[in-house]
């Protein structure tokens, strides 16, 4: 009965939509905002950006073709590029694994039968929802040499804290510590991943005699590995684009110790008005992000487990 009705409904519906051509047209029409946006704000600008990267362009006068001039200058004369790549890479290499590990460990702690789970989750997630200039200012004050919170806490355990943001050795570590404040975002994703692991897996492993350690390494880690992989890729993209903190808290200093790649790009484009050169820098960053992402995706075959996928080789 129900089937008969749904069949009639379907036939009637087919008749009503009319021709597939009309639906085809409607499809294009409804998607048109994004299609237009894709040409105006993505594809067009990408092509222009490639072209600009081979020119000298200061907005006021038309672009002047200089071939590989920008890229040659970058390699031969611009020492800040190397420094910017170095700073950005160190930051990524230190902050991403720390954030991944802590986010995963916190999720493990919160996945146990503990009291007040919503409260803990709120406390840990709270810092992840605030961002931008206000947060950068807060941490600049926390890292104040003489009156800051960081050095007060260190003082409590008898350590005389460094000058943090004013010290070329400690400015980048300070920004890495600050990045851990946002660990709650990764934690929430991990927690959802942990809660998605079917309990039967643990039960049958226990029957087979697997201990707690075995269950952790052979069930928990593989089952959550896609989530960790996602966090890793997002972490790379985010870390390599770091801008606001560095701009507000140190403006790249002291002595370029926190001169992130995005600062160099911003300075060239909007301070020195070297738009062509900045476009070339953007492409370098693009290929750097692409390279790292591809390396991680390549490696994922070895350590990310997807359910229902056959092991290769």
């Amino acid at each position, binding site marked *: 009965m129900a089937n008969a009705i749904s069949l009639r409904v379907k036939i009637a519906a087919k008749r009503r939509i009319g021709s597939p051509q009309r639906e085809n047209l409607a499809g294009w029409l*409804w998607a048109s*905002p*994004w299609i237009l946006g894709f040409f105006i704000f993505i594809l067009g600008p990408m092509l*222009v950006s490639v072209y600009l990267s081979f020119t000298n362009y200061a*907005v006021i006068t038309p672009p002047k073709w200089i071939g590989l001039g920008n890229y040659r200058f970058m390699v031969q004369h611009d020492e800040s590029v190397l420094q910017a790549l170095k700073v950005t890479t160190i930051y990524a290499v230190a902050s991403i694994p720390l954030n991944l590990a802590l986010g995963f460990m916190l999720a493990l702690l919160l996945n146990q039968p503990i009291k007040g789970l919503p409260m803990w989750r709120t406390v840990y997630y709270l810092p992840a929802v605030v961002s931008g200039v206000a947060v950068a200012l807060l941490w600049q*004050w926390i890292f104040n040499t003489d009156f800051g919170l960081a050095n007060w806490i260190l003082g409590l355990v008898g350590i005389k804290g460094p000058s943090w943001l004013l010290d070329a050795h400690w400015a980048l570590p300070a920004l890495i510590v600050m990045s851990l404040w946002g660990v709650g975002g990764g934690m929430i994703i991990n927690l959802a991943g942990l809660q998605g692991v079917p309990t039967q897996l643990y039960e049958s492993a226990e029957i087979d005699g697997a201990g707690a350690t075995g269950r952790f390494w052979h069930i928990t880690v593989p089952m959550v590995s896609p989530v960790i992989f996602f966090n890793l890729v997002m972490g790379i993209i985010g870390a390599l684009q770091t801008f606001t903190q560095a701009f507000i808290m140190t403006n790249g200093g002291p002595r370029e110790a926190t001169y992130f790649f995005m600062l160099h790009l911003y300075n060239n484009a909007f301070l020195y008005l070297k738009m062509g050169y900045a476009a070339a820098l953007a492409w370098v960053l693009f290929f750097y992000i692409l390279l790292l992402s591809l390396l991680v995706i390549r490696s994922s075959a070895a350590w990310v487990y997807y359910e229902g996928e056959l092991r290769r080789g």
Partner: protein
Amino acid sequence: MRAGVFASKRASRTAAQLITYLLLAAGAIFMLFPFAWMLSSSLKEAGDVLKFPPEWIPSPVVWRNYIDAMTLDYAPFGIFFKNTIIITFIAVFGQLLSSSAVGYSFARLRWSGRGPLFIVLLATMMLPYQVTLIPVFILFKKLGWVDTLLPLTVPAFFGDAFYVFLFRQFMMTIPTEMDDAARIDGCGTAGIYSRIIVPLSTPVLLTAAIFIFLSQWNDFLGPLIYLNSTHNYTLSLGLRIVQGYGGYGVQRWHLLMAASLIVMSPVLALFFLAQRYFIQGVVISGVKG
């Protein structure tokens, strides 16, 4: 004998729980201290902020700092609030409208370019914004839109790959029988969108609205590039003025913290009101994405 094994097992479980709570509490201090520090500093007298060791409970408690921070003659925060609210409101509205329509098209309509264009959409999600930053700036400059709110609002009406993807994934889960039934009742494509799909997508619309709000409210690079006149500034740029002003002498941290806390407070309020949607959004984007 067996009872002893159980007892020791229970004891070790209690010990493990104790360690769990201790670790969580230690981490919670790291999470909450900065907020407490910010609040404490914002309520101190100018002289008390620069004291070491710091006093956590300000005495006297200077509520006036909040008024002072908002009424600095060189940083009209009322105008900054107005600009930020306008930009955020238009961006949320435009982005929900455009991205949900495009998501509807990808999820529910059969059209010739759908498959390939969906792959293009996914690819653009991975594209770092720097690559298009400079040409898009030049485009807006040629249009004469620099130092207006247009570059920060108009792009929202063209949809964003991430939100289109989010809507598409959600709309795919709505049973197609509902469309068919609506068709029989005489609904066209637009009717199905507005009467069936949008009402049923309320949770994901709210989640997206929160994320768009957050990214607009906190945006710094966009306003930094596009806005030049103080009367067009957003809150992010306003905070930057206060910071820069103090940079020439002794930084007035009590005012800076009061202003920062005020700028943060709508975000915090929204979080406590709609925590469920925040967490849903993170989970949707992280696990299913």
